[in-house]
């Protein structure tokens, strides 16, 4: 039944990575449940104690026409016994559920890698939809890889036959069959998936049992002797990680949890105003279920209403939070200016996605840094924080709340589609280790003959937070320039100049921790300076380069604005600086502007995360070849790697 089309050559075997890290990509029609398969595989992998990272890649269309190239949905997981910080470069195993999935994903597969294809879906109709002239499973065009042809559709139908499902419903179990096979290949426990299916289909026991049967059948299939061909069982040793209790977490989850934790540490109720947008909606979904934590969620009529209602809630004494992605953030811009002018706390989460306008809604990019730091009318500064990973987003969310409430300012938290959707192991935090930062509302009414000063300032330049309902502190605020102290309307030239300076200085004075070095040391030949979700590939690339004796350090910036006070001095201590970004060079520009240092950009704007190899190449070019001193000509030129 299963046949290998190719005998793996020794060279190809050598190109294969050691079994300590394996990258598996599940690809199929967007209706095939590939995200579900990948998500469950992630769970079982985490439970096996492997370090892992995932990268979902799904189409913009909810249900693109079946079998077409643009309807392909994929989920990639990298797991292994060494620390994993990225979703992996080229996959080792590709599970292709139809011709379109094969066509759009096979070029990424490593030479010698394994293709598992559902031959039952490779009929003429699907081949034509995928624009194949001949069946690639038969014409030798896949000779570079190992090929496993399985009629997964037929095998699934056979497995679920006893449950009497209709053909369509029965075929929906294909993803579970495939998952069962993958679990066998990588020696994963089926029980968590079985438990999950029982819970998910508690009201539809037939469907639950059919899916479990498919899962078991796929697993059993792997075990049978018929499969002795190329699909050798791969067993990965559990990754040693820092001891403690772990769970998997996506960025959307950890941001939601961090915002709730931040509100609790501040002693505030949380108000979240949101409007559906990919990939930010998951935060609204998570928070909507946490009402017992004093969370109110409000799905507004549009992005503008979402931020305005959040500002209204902050004005009335709750912690206002809004969230969106680039186009929605653009709509919220005017209201951010009002929050800056009225100096109210607010957290704005931007889950960045690709491109201007609608761009690439489901792909990842880091191209909103300018928008976050500079993108408002008037001199309108606000603090900007960037999360580097799903787990890191928890602490970043708490930090955003702390700054917003301590300094009475809106704060922008940057994440991206990759962080929002990707899952990684997260060491469960000990909440007792987080110091509370309780908010104190102004309640002291002014004495006889005195008036309340809503724009008086403390040592941090923050103004008092006096909420409606407080006797004796009635006052008016708004978007028109305020007089220092009284907050009354004041158009006087010297007042506007003074207030502009105060708004700037307040934000510049935010207590940002000094910049540390992830790997390496201060001073040296080369620093790779990153921010956000490029963390994983940069860290891995720098580690690998250092293992080869290259003098390179990794600096990863969390506080984008204001920047850490020691950063300029630190950057100047290196001969060369390379800034890899999934944009055309935005942090690079900021660093050049602030410090007049010669940062060189390394840019990728394909909607996909960096590959470790791409950064390793840049390091090699940046420092020359080991002993050779670097020369300017070897530095990467400012150009897009994947135009």
């Amino acid at each position: 039944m299963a046949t290998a089309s190719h005998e793996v050559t020794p060279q190809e075997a050598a190109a294969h990575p050691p079994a300590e890290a394996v990258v598996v990509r599940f690809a199929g029609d967007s209706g095939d449940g590939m995200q579900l398969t990948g998500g469950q595989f992630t769970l079982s992998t985490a439970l096996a104690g492997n370090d892992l990272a995932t990268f979902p890649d799904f189409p913009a269309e909810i249900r693109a026409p079946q079998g077409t190239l643009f309807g392909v949905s994929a989920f990639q997981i990298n797991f292994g016994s060494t620390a994993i910080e990225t979703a992996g470069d080229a996959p080792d195993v590709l599970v292709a559920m139809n011709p379109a999935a094969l066509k759009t994903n096979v070029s990424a597969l490593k030479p010698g890698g394994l293709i598992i294809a559902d031959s039952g879906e490779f009929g003429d109709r699907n081949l034509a939809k995928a624009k194949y002239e001949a069946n690639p499973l038969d014409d030798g065009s896949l000779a570079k890889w190992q090929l496993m042809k399985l009629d997964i559709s037929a095998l699934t139908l056979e497995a679920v036959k006893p449950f009497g499902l209709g053909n369509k419903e029965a075929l929906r179990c294909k993803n579970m069959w495939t998952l069962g096979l993958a679990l066998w290949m990588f020696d994963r426990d089926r029980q968590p998936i079985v438990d999950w299916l029982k819970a998910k289909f508690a009201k539809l026991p037939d469907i639950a049992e059919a899916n479990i049967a498919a899962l078991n059948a796929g697993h059993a299939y792997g075990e049978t002797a018929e499969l002795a061909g190329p699909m050798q069982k791969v067993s990965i040793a559990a990754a040693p990680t820092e001891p403690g209790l772990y769970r998997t977490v996506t960025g959307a989850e950890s941001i939601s949890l961090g915002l709730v934790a931040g509100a609790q540490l501040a002693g505030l109720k949380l108000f979240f105003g949101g409007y559906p947008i990919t990939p930010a909606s998951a935060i609204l979904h998570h928070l909507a279920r946490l009402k017992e934590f004093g969370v109110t969620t409000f799905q507004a009529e549009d992005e503008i209403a979402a931020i305005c209602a959040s500002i209204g809630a902050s004005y009335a004494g709750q912690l206002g939070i809004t969230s969106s992605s680039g186009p929605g953030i653009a709509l919220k811009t005017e209201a951010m200016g009002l929050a800056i002018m009225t100096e109210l706390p607010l957290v704005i989460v931007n889950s960045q996605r690709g491109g201007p306008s609608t761009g690439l809604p489901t792909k990842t990019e880091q191209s909103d840094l300018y928008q976050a730091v500079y993108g408002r009318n008037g001199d309108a500064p606000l603090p900007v924080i960037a999360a580097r990973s799903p787990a890191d987003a928890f602490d970043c969310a708490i930090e955003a709340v702390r700054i917003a409430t301590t300094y009475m300012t809106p704060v922008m938290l940057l994440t991206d589609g990759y962080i929002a959707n990707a899952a990684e192991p997260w060491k469960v935090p000990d909440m007792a280790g987080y110091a509370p930062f309780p908010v104190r509302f102004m309640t002291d009414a002014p004495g006889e003959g005195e008036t309340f000063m809503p724009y008086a300032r403390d040592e941090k330049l923050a103004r008092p937070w006096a909420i409606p309902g407080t006797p004796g502190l009635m006052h008016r605020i708004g978007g028109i320039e305020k007089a220092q102290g009284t907050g009354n309307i004041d158009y006087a030239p010297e007042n506007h100049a003074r207030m502009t300076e105060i708004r700037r200085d307040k934000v510049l004075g935010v207590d940002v921790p000094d910049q540390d070095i992830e790997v390496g040391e201060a001073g040296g030949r080369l620093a790779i300076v990153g921010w956000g979700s490029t963390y994983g590939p940069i860290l891995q690339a720098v580690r690998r380069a250092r293992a080869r004796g290259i003098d390179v350090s990794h600096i990863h910036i969390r506080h984008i604005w204001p920047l850490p006070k020691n950063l300029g001095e630190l950057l100047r201590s290196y001969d060369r600086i390379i800034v890899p970004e999934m944009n055309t060079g935005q942090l690079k520009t900021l660093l050049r502007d602030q410090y007049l240092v010669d940062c060189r950009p390394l840019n990728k704007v394909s909607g996909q995360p960096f590959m470790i190899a791409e950064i390793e190449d840049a390091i090699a070019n940046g420092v020359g070849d080991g002993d050779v001193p670097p020369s300017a000509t070897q530095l990467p030129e400012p150009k897009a790697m994947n135009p």
Partner: protein
Amino acid sequence: MNDMTPIATSPKDWETDQEVRWCPGCGDYAILKAIQRTMPQIGGTPANTVFVSGIGCSSRFPYYMETYGFHTIHGRAPAFVTGIKLANPDLDVWLVTGDGDGLSIGGNHMMHILRRNLDTQILLFNNEIYGLTKGQYSPTSREGTRSPSTPFGSVDHPAKPCAFALGSGARFVARGYDVSKNLPDVLKAAHSHKGAAFIEIFQNCIVYNADVFAEFTDKNNANSHQLWLEQGEPMLFEKGSRGISLDHDTLQLKVVDVEGGDWQNAGVIVHDVRNRAVAHMLVEMPFGPFPMALGVLYDDPHPTFESAVVAQNRELSEGRTPDLQALVSKGQTWMVEKEPREN
């Protein structure tokens, strides 16, 4: 914090020390006075009252009320009010907007605050013109309005604020005008309505659109062109000599003459503020052949948005202890007992 004990106030207690900056003769002055007179009568508490506005002449209003005030951004006041009221439902929140702010740039938010039925008073000052930006025609300007942006006359059809409100699901719709002595009564009715109370207040812009409502606000025209609606009372005007009746053949309103006070015989309708069908006809009644319907056109309370949100939040929180440590530890977890790895 929210001391709800009513305290006796006088209109003076509701005035701020800020210089009022509307043009001399602007209808806004009269509306400000009417509200400052109304607040003591409804037992309002300055510390518990919030005035929220968008942008425009009318939106300067909060600066002149000795309450909490928030002058926000153009068209978005309903969204701010929603956040304020959801965060603290005990506050008495008043929304001040205009025809441009509330029906043009902010039309979307106006629709949604009305359909959600958030408990607030929405005062839409309709002067049929953009005053603050110096006289462009507005979404309520009549066809043919000449303005800097329509020098040869506007060609688009005006919006009808009360019809818009009713169509959006409003449960309270009323009308008044700036210098009307009845305005405080309309405001009081709006305040006593629990839910979104929409009041269109015709306001004379003396600079850019003077006397545009004079056909019914002018003293000489008041009797013949104002129909003041009272719950349970017949719809009579012109000193009871004329009334509004229903033409049973066409199912449309018509004006009938009333002989010797016998309005029953003339078929004049008795106003029932809960009759939504009649309310639809009243807001669509063309001025000219008909008088201008004023007062409370429709008032039929319905559960409010903030009370439903609060009830659901409470229901889902009851019996649950918010345990942050348990929350972050949720889901399937596993224990790692080995030493930290070497890099």
